């Protein structure tokens, strides 16, 4: 009876400890093993077996004083078994050798997560899978959850993840932080992958979909990690600032009836001041580093929007200047769309529409909701009602969020005849 009680208590404690270590160290443990063998999938499998073993062993023998080290030792042994069983594989020998070089009790584990992120976002890896790959190997999210967040079938997502890991292994993509000359371009792909996860989550930031909401938190965690591990990189700070500005307004995007509230009509009192303050701090520190980039410019635009709404002083000329700089840097049609809205504030809707003229031929925008929403808004202002109505319809049809759809419907209904 008493034994049963103790066992149950032990079970509970073992589970809590294991979950705790998983949350804190999952990516670190995967990265440590994978960076030595180049085999991410095997590292994940070995670690998952080690966690299973822990749940049987710890309740019986008590939680080890160094759970991370315990898991590492078991995972390493499983990994060696796995590699041996597959020894006909051409790279298996090398993997085995490097594994046996690992000192079993290394004390404090070196943090190889950054190197692993660089491997996952390597230019040789398909751009679309980089973000899911990082979310899986650093945070341990399962393919099913990632698939829902990225609107892909779980089976297809699973296959793509397997293929990407196999590519890292077969192509010999190394787990290292690139040197000085390569770094800016390579860091960009890492930051872009993190941002892709954030924007996926953002598409239903207030919805009931927990997976998506989690994606925002997980992406913020990854951005923080990069800032922490690369404190000298201005763009990493820029990205984190950009995400924090957006996230600070998450609650204000809905009123008490659940209706969508656009930025210009939001009550700044509902914004999260601490996140804005953190973002401002990051952006200032980044600016001091004297290395402007895409994410810093985007964050600066968010900062300008926030300041205008809070202080009520129009700063559209500054915003336009920032968009010009951003367009010069990226040449992205998405920038031209947002820039047009600033042009409209300064020089009127007609000129804004003219500035978007060249986008009409861009087939990629046919399915891009913000393009149609911006067009609709501007056409309504210039009095081209029929065209405005059509643009609103397309924008509504392209929108996934029912609250935004309703908002756009009301705007469309407000057009005169």
């Amino acid at each position, binding site marked *: 009876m008493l034994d049963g009680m103790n066992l149950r208590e032990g079970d509970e404690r073992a589970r809590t400890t294991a979950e705790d270590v998983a949350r804190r160290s999952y990516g670190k443990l995967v990265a440590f093993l994978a960076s030595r063998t180049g085999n991410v999938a095997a590292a994940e499998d070995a670690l998952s077996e080690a966690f299973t073993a822990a749940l049987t062993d710890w309740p019986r023998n008590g939680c080890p004083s160094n759970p991370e080290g315990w898991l590492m030792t078991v995972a390493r042994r499983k990994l060696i078994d796995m590699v041996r069983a597959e020894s006909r594989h051409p790279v298996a020998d090398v993997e085995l050798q490097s594994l046996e070089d690992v000192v079993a009790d290394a004390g404090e584990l070196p943090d190889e997560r950054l190197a692993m992120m660089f491997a996952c976002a390597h230019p040789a890896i398909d751009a679309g899978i980089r973000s899911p790959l990082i979310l899986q190997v650093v945070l341990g999210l399962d393919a099913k959850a990632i698939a829902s967040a990225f609107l892909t*079938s779980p089976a297809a997502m699973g296959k793509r993840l397997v293929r990407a890991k196999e590519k890292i292994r077969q192509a010999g993509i190394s787990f290292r932080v690139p040197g000085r000359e390569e770094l800016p371009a390579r860091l960009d792909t890492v930051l872009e992958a993190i941002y892709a996860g954030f924007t996926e989550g953002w598409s239903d930031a207030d919805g009931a979909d927990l997976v998506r909401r989690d994606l925002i938190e997980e992406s913020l965690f990854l951005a923080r990690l990069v800032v922490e591990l690369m404190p000298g990189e201005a763009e990493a700070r820029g990205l984190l600032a950009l995400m924090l500005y957006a996230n600070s307004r998450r609650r204000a995007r809905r009123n008490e009836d659940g209706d969508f509230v656009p930025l210009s009509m939001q009550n700044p009192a509902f914004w999260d001041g601490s996140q804005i303050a953190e973002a401002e701090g990051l952006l200032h520190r980044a600016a001091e580093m004297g290395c402007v980039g895409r994410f810093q410019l985007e964050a600066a635009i968010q900062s300008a929007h926030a300041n205008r709404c809070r202080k009520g002083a129009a700063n559209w000329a500054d915003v336009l200047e920032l968009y010009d700089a951003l367009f010069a840097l990226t040449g992205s049609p998405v920038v031209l769309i947002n820039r047009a809205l600033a042009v409209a504030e300064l020089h009127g809707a007609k000129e804004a529409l003219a500035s978007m003229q060249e986008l009409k031929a861009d087939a990629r925008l046919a399915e891009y909701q913000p393009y149609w929403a911006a067009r609709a808004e501007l056409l309504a202002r210039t009095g081209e009602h029929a065209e405005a109505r059509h643009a609103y319809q397309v924008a509504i049809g392209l929108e996934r969020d*029912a609250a935004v759809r309703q908002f756009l419907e009301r705007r469309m209904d407000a057009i005169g005849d």
Partner: protein
Amino acid sequence: MQYLLLLHAEEAGFMNMTPAQQQQGMAAYLAYTEALKEAGVFKGSNRLRPVATATTVRVADGKTQVLDGPYADSKEQLGGYYLIDVADLDAALAWAARCPGAGHGIVEVRPIWDMG
């Protein structure tokens, strides 16, 4: 590649809405169809009359059996479809997620098996 988006929903949901809500619901579908056409992926679409109008036919052991009502008696019923032509499954899923039907029911995405 062509995909059929099958829209399943609880019929009672629509019937119990106020006329204004119904009109709003219809407007959302109109806009969705417009967006599909603008993107050049629209192949066809129709709405089905309520399941009460359904009749099933089957021939077993040489005898023809005709029954009132739908084949599957489930909570959600097939209420309509969109046929779209897009690059791949991901593109089809993106359109399914935008479909108003995904918000008040379930959209099943099935690739068309080309027999031609």
